[in-house]
């Protein structure tokens, strides 16, 4: 029986961990991820999970430990934020390259300096080329649902890649929301057992993992990794559909909201898309503006074709980035513009919310108004605009 409960984003992810019941969890504390691990450590202490919990001395060691555990045939998870993710950097590549299906909630937080503990996406955006699948969550329910689906996606034999489940620090991690939780047995059956054919603990068939591959072999390894990423979209769609049949909540890689007849469409990731959806409802009622929101759930692999299709009838598109690629602009904007190469109308890039700067409903509406103005006037310069920035 599904159960309705009130949990924060951190607690929702911890509850998903409890139901996944991993063999190994290794983690290191960092705000705002800490409460996820407090909650999970309490499950361990009360014997509610079979998990061996490793309280490591750094995020680098957390990722190192779960990589080895995963190669040893254990279902292994960790979680982190911001600087913790940055310290894992080297290991993120190794996790993906060693084809370790690790599931890691990342509680999105701004990177230093200046030090800041609040939400933006510069941490996970910076990790976009590491070979991890990235799913972004709009609310706590999605964080929970994404974490469960992540296990299936990661461990699919055609994929075998790690997955980051991204959820906005504080905005989701520390906000109490209603959660529709599946019962344990449903989750158990849905995720199944983790098995890998090449296993570090297979002492009778000893293998060397992480060998030294030079000019003659390295390239082929990378091609196989790229191919695995190519297999992921079909698996993500299939798992999202199956999850829907099981729970009534199905998931695709994109989540379009009132886009069918929209002239003005805003694209983005995470919790702000909830605010943007409200802005759409308001502006349609108040100003008759035909607007919509295209929320991207799966950022890696990048669903370029789907995005292009979803935006093909928009007169203007605004992309909201909660991160900056210094010297370029918003990373999401540039990927979408590249996906729409060869026409398809003007685009503006809105950079917002860095370091947890609030995106109020009014600011979200301003984005739409700004786009509507640019559409009517044809004035699209400057392309990169900052939302809610003090002069």
């Amino acid at each position: 029986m599904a159960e309705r409960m009130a949990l924060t984003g951190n607690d929702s992810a911890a509850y998903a961990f409890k139901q996944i019941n991993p063999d190994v969890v290794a983690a290191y504390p960092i705000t705002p991820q800490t409460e996820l691990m407090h909650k999970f450590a309490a499950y361990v202490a009360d014997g509610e999970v079979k998990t061996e919990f490793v309280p490591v001395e750094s995020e680098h060691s957390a990722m190192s430990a779960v990589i080895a555990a995963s190669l040893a045939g254990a279902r292994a998870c960790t979680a982190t934020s911001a600087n913790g993710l940055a310290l894992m950097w080297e290991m993120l590549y190794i996790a993906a390259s060693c084809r370790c299906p690790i599931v890691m909630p990342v509680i999105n937080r701004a990177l230093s300096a200046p030090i800041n503990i609040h939400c933006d996406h510069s941490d996970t955006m910076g990790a976009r080329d590491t070979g991890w699948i990235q799913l972004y969550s709009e609310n706590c329910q999605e964080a929970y649902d994404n974490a469960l689906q992540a296990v299936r996606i990661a461990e699919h034999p055609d994929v075998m890649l790690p997955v980051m489940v991204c959820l906005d620090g504080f905005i989701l991690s520390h906000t109490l929301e209603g959660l529709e939780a599946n019962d344990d047995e449903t989750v158990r059956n849905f995720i199944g057992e983790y098995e890998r054919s090449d296993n570090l603990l297979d002492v009778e068939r000893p293998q060397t993992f992480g060998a030294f591959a030079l000019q003659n072999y390295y390239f082929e390894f990378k091609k196989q990794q790229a191919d695995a990423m190519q297999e992921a979209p079909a698996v993500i769609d299939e798992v999202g559909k199956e999850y829907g049949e099981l729970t009534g909540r199905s998931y695709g890689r994109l989540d379009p909201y009132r886009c069918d007849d929209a002239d003005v469409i805003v694209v983005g990731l995470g919790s702000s898309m909830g605010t943007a959806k409200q802005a759409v409802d308001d502006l349609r009622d108040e100003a008759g503006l035909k607007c919509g929101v295209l929320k991207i759930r799966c950022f890696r692999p990048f669903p370029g074709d789907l995005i292009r299709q979803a935006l093909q009838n928009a007169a203007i598109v605004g992309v909201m980035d909660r991160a900056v690629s210094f010297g370029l602009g918003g990373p999401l904007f540039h990927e979408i513009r590249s996906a729409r190469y060869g026409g398809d109308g003007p685009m503006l890039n809105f950079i917002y919310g860095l370091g947890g700067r609030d995106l109020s409903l009014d600011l979200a509406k301003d984005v739409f108004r700004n786009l509507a103005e640019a559409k009517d006037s044809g004035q699209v310069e400057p392309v990169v605009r900052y939302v809610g920035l003090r002069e």
Partner: protein
Amino acid sequence: MATTSLKQLCEMPDLLSGGHAACPGCAGPVAIRQILLAAQQDDTYVVASISTGCMEVSTTVYPNSAWRIPLFHSAFENSAATISGAETAYRSLKKQGKIDKKIAFIAFGGDGGTYDIGLQSLSGALERGHNFTYVCYDNEAYMNTGIQRSGSTPKGAFTTTAPAGKVEPGKRQRKKNLTAIVAAHDIPYVAQASPHRARDLMNKVQKAVATEGACFINVLSPCPRGWRYAPDQTFQIAKLAADTCVWPLYEIEDGKLTINYKPREKKPMLDWLKSQGRFRHLFTPQNEHLVEEIQQDVDREWQRLLTLEAMGKETAQ
């Protein structure tokens, strides 16, 4: 019963095969072969991690591998964290009845990966008390990347990042006493060993493997390229290290220190310094004073070990 009998060991298959690409005269593969033979006996299997370094690059050039046990090379600074993960997975899966084999976990690292960049990872794994043995093969510099100075490089040695020049005498600082740092973690077993005393090294390995908890063995690994001596001299150099007491062979079992080799006649450090080209520049008027300092450092550490050993004996009485 695990054996260290050379006759019996000779009949066992080597677990690190020949054909690897280590330099002639390198002590590393010799030590690793002894360690694996000593550890994987009876019903015990070995699973190992290794940090980036000489032994890793020379033994795992894809699609070949010299290792006949499961090995994972992950990165440079995380051999201990890596073995933590493998050992924890093993504990979890064993508890669930998904694995029944008896596995000993060994983490290998060079001095760069252990004294320097991997020290935090090592310290964390020791403190958490994973059931594993960490083996540092100490060749006293970053040999793999071209003989750069490490925290383990001894005072006065020439390296490419602390070269001896017109005004600099090579490395000015002392070698970090890693074995003492590890011992301060109060783990059940800590030792220093050398491949020229194979039985001593293998006994230590067998003790470590049989001990529940985190254990550590620091193995001297003479390096003809970096230390500048002829490749056929490796074991003589290793023996000289023990005879001059620059590399004392000892073990600490639950806090009790035992010196496993006391040279009948403690040889002067001059013999050690003259045996290797990396110290050649010390024999000039401007650097001569360092020879005396180096001798004093070695004497002080040897005296410290003798005192600790005597204290342990008194406590036992």
